């Protein structure tokens, strides 16, 4: 467990062990769009997983790319093992390129279609002179085996492999340079469910064997639940809430986390929750709302939310939230018990609500107003 920067250390342990990766006040802009807005995150030394959860436009992918210096940050800093990543040059940057690696979402495009699998991995090995040249073929075979693939795949082209197999190759390539930090950008979301399960097992195994730290970017609560100690929920380029994954899942302190959690489909009937309706659409990142960026869609928004930007603050132990009404959310009040079932009749247009009424959809129930 680590503490976040500029905060009172949450756990005593955090004071002694510095994080492997510290992201402080990171901002990334694409023209007028604030894709990432003053985000601070810590990733502890491995084995450790930090999950980044969010919907499209939340900035989760951009954070991962900024960590790898694939996009330029426009503010804040990223520190890896005490070094400022932004100012790395030459050999130091090359060393960082070994220490931090990334696995992308789409297995279709993650490998050069004109290169044999073996050549792709050899390129990584040779770039960093990981092993002497004559050991390269042997190491490729080891890496493929470690990723759960037949070593004979070295002689194949990407198109001869399935999506899951390609994703394993991408992992083998990333691991070939023995990184300490992995950015896993939706590594399983393009895969079938059984392939995804195998992939998650592989990540869990490698994490233990290689003592990996990783930033796992996903929209799937189940995936962070299986692989991450800590999880941050992002909304419109900001951290809405961050804490131990279990705490976050079971007692979220931010209304958005609550809503997101309630929207996750569940197989088990007993664990289904009433869905919290978020009115309207996600706002335009080029023109973010004043105050709390979530207020136009928040069921609990009050006047203060419209003007005052909520700071990330301690909600419970090792659990921080950026919401003025976190206490009310944690008290469990407004969201589910105080509001009656309300169903919009099909013949009316949903008003763009600026008010703070919570709507909980329960389709089978006849219409009645709160």
């Amino acid at each position, binding site marked *: 467990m680590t503490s976040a920067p500029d905060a009172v250390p949450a756990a005593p342990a955090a004071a002694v062990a510095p994080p492997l990766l510290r992201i402080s006040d990171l901002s990334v802009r694409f023209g007028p769009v604030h894709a990432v807005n003053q985000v601070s995150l810590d990733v502890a030394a491995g084995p450790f997983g930090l999950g980044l959860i969010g919907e499209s436009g939340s900035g989760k992918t951009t954070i991962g790319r900024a960590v790898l210096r694939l996009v330029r940050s426009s503010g804040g800093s990223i520190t890896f093992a005490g070094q400022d990543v932004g100012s790395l040059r030459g050999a130091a940057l090359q060393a960082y390129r070994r220490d931090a690696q990334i696995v992308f979402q789409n297995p279709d495009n993650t490998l050069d279609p004109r290169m044999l699998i073996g050549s792709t991995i050899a390129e990584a090995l040779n770039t960093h002179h990981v092993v002497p040249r004559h050991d390269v073929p042997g190491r490729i075979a080891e890496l493929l085996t470690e990723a759960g693939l037949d070593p004979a795949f070295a002689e194949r082209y990407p198109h001869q492999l399935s999506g899951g197999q390609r994703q394993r190759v991408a992992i083998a390539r990333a691991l070939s340079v023995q990184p300490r930090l992995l950015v896993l950008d939706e590594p399983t979301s393009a895969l079938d469910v059984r392939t995804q399960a195998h992939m998650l097992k592989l990540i869990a195994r490698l994490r233990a064997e290689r003592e990996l730290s990783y930033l796992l970017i996903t929209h799937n609560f189940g995936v962070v639940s299986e692989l991450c100690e800590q999880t941050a929920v992002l909304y419109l380029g900001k951290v809405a809430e961050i804490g131990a994954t279990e705490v976050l899942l079971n007692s979220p302190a931010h209304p958005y986390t609550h809503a997101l959690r309630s929207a996750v489909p569940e197989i088990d*009937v007993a664990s289904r929750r009433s869905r919290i309706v978020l009115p309207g659409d996600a706002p335009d990142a080029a023109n973010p709302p004043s105050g709390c960026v979530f207020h136009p869609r928040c069921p609990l928004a009050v006047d203060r939310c419209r003007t005052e930007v909520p700071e990330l603050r301690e909600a419970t132990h090792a659990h921080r939230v950026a919401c003025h009404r976190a206490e009310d959310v944690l008290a469990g009040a407004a969201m589910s018990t105080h509001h009656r079932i309300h169903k919009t009749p099909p013949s009316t*247009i949903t008003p763009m609500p600026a008010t703070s009424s919570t709507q909980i959809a329960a389709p089978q129930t006849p219409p009645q107003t709160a």
Partner: protein
Amino acid sequence: MTETPPTPNGPSGRLAITSLDISFGRRKVVSIDELRLDHAEIVGIAGESGSGKSMTTLAILGLASTVGATVSGSIVLDGQELTALSQDDLREIRGRRIAAIFQSPSTAFSPVYKVGAIVTKALRLHGATKSEAADRAAEAMRQVLLAPDLLRRYPSQLSGGQLQRVAIALALALRAEILLADEPTSALDVTVQAEVLDLLRDLRDVTGMSILFISHDLAVVAELCDRVAVMRNGVIVEQGPASQVLSSPADPYTAELLDSVPKLATTK
């Protein structure tokens, strides 16, 4: 659509598929013994990629031949055998009685037309007058909880969730009895997905529309569907009430699929 009287189910359901085989040349890709969709019922077809679930949709729409597949067996819609119909008759049924929505709504709409133009054009093709078409389009937009103003926008000006709603509105405006939904929420964000699922469920309740919902996501199927058929390699390995199949699966493959879904660590 509330005025449409519910049609009673025949003995074999509103849509009944029996002994359906779909093949490419000698290679059989789908072989379904029996699949039934009743009035106001939501049936899920769950399976991984390559299980043949999307080919089944194409066959029901009478479009399997367009991708070079041959279909044999029987697809009966309210007593009418669809496999025996000509392409012209099928075109009348497609859209009019059986509508379809797909995974990627942004590619389902031509980017050079306003969505309203696309919706009214479809209505007029199926015999509505100009003013009738406009009225029905607006009414359908309200049913999917969208402002009718959005009809004046281009597809690129709408979000993925909004476009999927417009696609559903089109099906409603056409008074389709059956909606084939092929992975309609897979490309959407979780909160938007939940909204679309709620919408589909509400529409079923209000209009009596039957929905064949195709998805790889068992949780989504579990939330939405009354019955579920699990497909693997073109064959239905198990079907039955969703709650039963997904809580105590009889087939080991279903069990494996269920086991593969990442579990949330819940303390309660």
